[in-house]
């Protein structure tokens, strides 16, 4: 705030002011935004749950259409990116603005903000990459947002084994799958883009410090949220 009496510590709530949430405003704002994002995913995931409960014909069995092992690896990748994100946050909280620094007595060098955030971005981008590849393969085999494409490989499988492939509910399976994972992927992509922007404009020029790393904490919250949603999605879309 340009006019207020400046606080020494920017990571405290605004001052002078009545006690509020007890945290600085961008953090509160991000939490409120995440609450609204929960409601957005509720509409999409809720639709999936409601429609799936409502169909009388069998839904496709897990693993029949989707590649569970690959996605399990992808899930692991996203979790890794969440860990590297929180390591980045811990690093800048300790003032470690650097990339890597040798530590006497240890073989592994100590990672700073620049290192850990880059790891996060790479893992995040890899997650999106794997998803895109998966999408291309699925569509190639005939799994589309409107169901099994006529004449495709999956359509043949579905005709041969209607229960395993949920032939009767293939359309809804495709629609719900692509809408949920697609919007999740969109959220991940936005996260990677935001991180890249911050990396270039703030992290590389070492504008964050132990006294002010609000941007890192805030983007971290968003990133963990995106991971959290994926944890739920992976289970209910791929495994159940």
């Amino acid at each position, binding site marked *: 705030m340009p006019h207020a009496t400046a606080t020494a510590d920017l990571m405290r709530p605004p001052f002078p002011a009545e006690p509020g949430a007890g945290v600085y405003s961008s953090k509160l704002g991000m939490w409120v935004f995440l609450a609204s994002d929960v409601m957005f995913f509720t509409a999409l995931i809720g639709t999936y749950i409601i429609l799936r409960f409502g169909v009388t014909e069998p839904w496709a069995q897990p693993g029949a259409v989707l590649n569970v092992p690959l996605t399990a690896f992808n899930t692991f990748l996203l979790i890794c990116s969440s860990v590297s994100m929180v390591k980045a946050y811990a690093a800048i909280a300790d003032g470690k603005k650097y990339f890597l620094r040798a530590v006497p007595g240890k073989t592994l060098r100590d990672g700073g903000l620049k290192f850990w955030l880059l790891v996060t971005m790479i893992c995040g981008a890899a997650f999106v990459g794997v998803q895109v590849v998966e999408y291309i393969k699925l569509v190639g085999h005939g799994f589309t947002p409107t169901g099994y494409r006529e004449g495709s490989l999956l359509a043949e499988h579905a005709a041969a084994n209607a229960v395993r492939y949920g032939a009767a509910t293939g359309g809804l399976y495709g629609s719900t799958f692509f809408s949920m994972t697609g919007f999740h992927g969109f959220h991940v992509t936005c996260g990677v883009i935001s991180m890249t922007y911050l990396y270039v404009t703030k992290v590389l020029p070492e504008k964050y410090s132990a006294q002010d790393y609000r941007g890192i904490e805030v983007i971290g919250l968003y990133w963990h949220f995106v991971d959290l949603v994926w944890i739920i999605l992976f289970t*209910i879309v791929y495994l159940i």
Partner: protein
Amino acid sequence: METVAHKRPNYVAIWGYLFVLTVIEVAAALMSHIPKHWLILILLFLAIWKALLVAMYFMHLRFERWRLRVVFMVPLPLAAILVLATITEKIW
């Protein structure tokens, strides 16, 4: 500066837990002899456990004031109400 003083959690340990829980989940899902209803409960339980780990430790909710936790908790019952009410259209 942390808003509430606390000992920093061991992030690598949490990562380990998440990894193990994911392995258990995938293994359980691939074990086709578990009855479907039990499987769903187990998987949901594991997923929620993982989600809580991320929320509590990575998002630091464990160490934040209640005022901040409330912000995240408020949409959850609303989501549940919407989904459960609409499900009754077909299964009640």
